[in-house]
């Protein structure tokens, strides 16, 4: 076991865990932040995506050692009132079906937009094809990213 200090959604949290325990499970099983989802556990689906210092990472592939001291943002912390441009666009276009993959989708989209505020289709295709959705919200995700980009531009 080892002690780490994690800064999750702006709050410092001490954890005492096996150094090999992935961030995904620290969030879900130790900190009860269950908005970050498990689906494959091996880095191939994107359901567990979180932001670390603003960059999208698959939390099932991160160790506490890597994440400690860095700013971790989960879906619960993307905005206070579900008002991040991505969340607004997702609501407007009614993107989710079952919703299970969507926290990962939204965080991947948020990271994309922060790097590339007006992404072209080809970039969206490339980035968002790494996240799996079995309900088939593909079309709406693509539209919603363009819409989020507009909303963010207006907010300035």
């Amino acid at each position, binding site marked *: 076991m080892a002690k780490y200090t994690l800064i999750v959604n702006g709050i410092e949290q001490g954890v005492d865990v096996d150094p090999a325990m992935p961030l995904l499970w620290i969030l879900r099983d130790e900190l009860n932040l269950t908005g970050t989802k498990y689906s494959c556990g091996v880095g191939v689906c994107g359901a567990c995506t979180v932001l670390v210092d603003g960059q999208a990472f698959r939390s099932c592939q991160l160790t506490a050692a890597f994440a400690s001291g860095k700013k971790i943002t989960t879906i619960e912390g993307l905005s206070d009132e579900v008002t991040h441009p991505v969340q607004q666009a997702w609501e407007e276009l009614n993107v989710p079906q*079952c919703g299970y993959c969507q926290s990962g989708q939204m965080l991947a989209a948020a990271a994309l937009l922060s790097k590339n505020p007006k992404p072209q289709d080809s970039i969206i*295709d490339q980035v968002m094809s790494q996240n799996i959705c*079995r309900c088939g919200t593909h079309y709406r995700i693509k539209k919603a990213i363009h819409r989020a980009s507009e909303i963010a531009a207006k907010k300035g």
Partner: protein
Amino acid sequence: MNRRNFLRISSFTAGAWLISDLIPLASDARDRAGVESFMPNPLIRIQSDGKVILYVMKQEMGQQVDTSLPALIAEELDVDPQRVQVETFAYDAAIAGRYNTYASASIRSSWQTLRKAGAAARTMLMNAAADVWQVSPEDLKTENSKVINPVTGASLSYANLIEKASNLKVPDNPVLKDLKDFKLIGKKNKRTNIKKILGGKQEYGIDVRLPGMVYAAVVRSPVFYGKIQSWDDSALKKLGPGILQVVPVSQMGNGVDNRNGVAIIATNTWLAFRAQQLLKVEWDLGAIPNSSTVALSAALKKAVSTEKPVLQFDSKGKASFFSKITDLKAFKATYELPYLAHLAMEPINCTAWYKDGKYELWGGFQAPGAFANNLSKAFGLDPSAIFVNLLPMGGAFGRKEKVDNAAEAMQLSKATGKPVQVVFSRADDTKNDFYRPASFHQLTAVADKLSISNWRHEVGIATFPAKNISSAQDIYGGPANDLCYPVNDYQSAFYAVESPVPIGSWRSISYNHNVFAVESFIDELAKRLLIDPVDFRMNLFKNGFDENNGKTKHMQRLQTVLQKCADAIHWKQKPLLKRFRGIACCQYTHTDAYTAHAFEISVSPEKAITIHKVVCAIDCGLIIDPDGFRAQVEGSLVWALSAAIKEEITITNGQADQQSFFDHDVMRLREMPPFELIIVESNENPGGAGEPAVPSVAPALCNAIAAATGKRIRMLPLIKEGYTI
């Protein structure tokens, strides 16, 4: 009873529509602190604070029943949509079957009843207001949770009428609104739970966290009927004190469908998964029938060519004999389809807590009826000893009709005395699925450009267990006797072959087999008869059905979607150079829905497919929630393309080979083609939305490939034939 905190429930015995139909007599009729409420029936609670609570009995898995079903009540009740709150109807063992959610049936089966529930409540509130004002209720109207007297301009809010209304009789035949007066049905309605999803606050089964809860992973028998011989957990020691217990799990049979296994109880999911890798179990696998994909495929073909069918149909239904076509002019073709898994994004899981002889469970289930009917029997309990907290599902697609996970969690909670959450790893989920069965189709027909005189559809299908033919035939994939084209002499036959792996419902059930085979064959016939495939279908439709049992109407609706789909892809105009088109249609008789898909594609010499456009035309009757409906059809396209192009479960030693998205790829965002959806306006009864737009996708695409390459696709998925997207 405290006057300020009471509940008025109308006599639930009134209203024949209520008793005979979907709405239960028992109800979630609990007092709520601080408000008076009136429940004219178990699905509606009108509170003195102006809030109206509508209850949903169907299980949410992404199909948005939490929006569409309440809209049906709210429409007739004329409530202020801003003040409506939607809640799930708490599980009640006495009526467990009514929570079942499959076959795209939620709206179809309950839409009139839900409207009547709303209309009856509204009538009672109007009668109450009429009594206050001493006028006739016919002279009053309702709007935004108020009864209004148009003559005087007076109004009374529903909240102020609940006491009076609750003393009135529930009307037997409440008058329903005229379709043209709908304000919510068919309009874009606010999605009830979307903010929860967007904020990461929606609680799925896997997110349940209870005080003192422990986590379990199970090493399950690699084959369904395998038995534990011994196990060795010595390697688990190095994982430390987080490993709490190792407990065997027994197979229970009886519609419970779990396997024998050995569970590791740990302090977190990750540790349980790690221990699962280290635990060694010796199995007695027993005899495995047709234990590989190759053996099964051979057995299916052999059955069709040499055995007697186990079931046969003619155009009227089940028949007593089957005869092959011997005419030398007959066309013949065969098609083969693989096992398919579900891979919902939320892996299978369940949480159980055994206390004082009773079980409380948490999870997402498509068939809560199984708790009262199967699990309680298997555990030797009264159905009331099991209570389930029904949670939304992170995808289901037919897989979550099973309760194997619940049986495990219940056994483990009893063994540990703690609340236990069982989580299937992704590999567990893929390898312990109930698969869409593999099938082999042989079609034979005598036809000319104008008609088909003789038609035979023979299907060999993997059944499990071997003797269970009925479910395999109807639900999972056997031949249907509802061919949508009129033919003179129709017969179909069903040959059962014992499956090495369990089978189950898979989004669009038997249709995804049969429509693929039939629509590929029709295209093939048209090519051989040198007639355009749309013209050929239209010619066939012209022959009409003799029997007047609804088939003619089905056919007309199908014909309309086919025509609209063909028009939208400009079927009659030549495509650009090196582009080719394919079309197919599907009469989804189970849920009264009609769909056609058309593709425009090109195929490179290296077999890389580029899809330039897909059109879908669909008639699903009256549509309650158009945006949710569109989402279902979009999702169906992704689902069906994924299966047609990429997905297959192969079997070695009676076990699925695949385990996760790295060896079982699915459709990605960049692979989705431009898509046009045409919804045929209709006032027919609402049909199902979740499934009917799946089956015609694969044959339409494969018909386009045949047009482009001259090569017929006889086997899915396409990657197996070397195609890429």
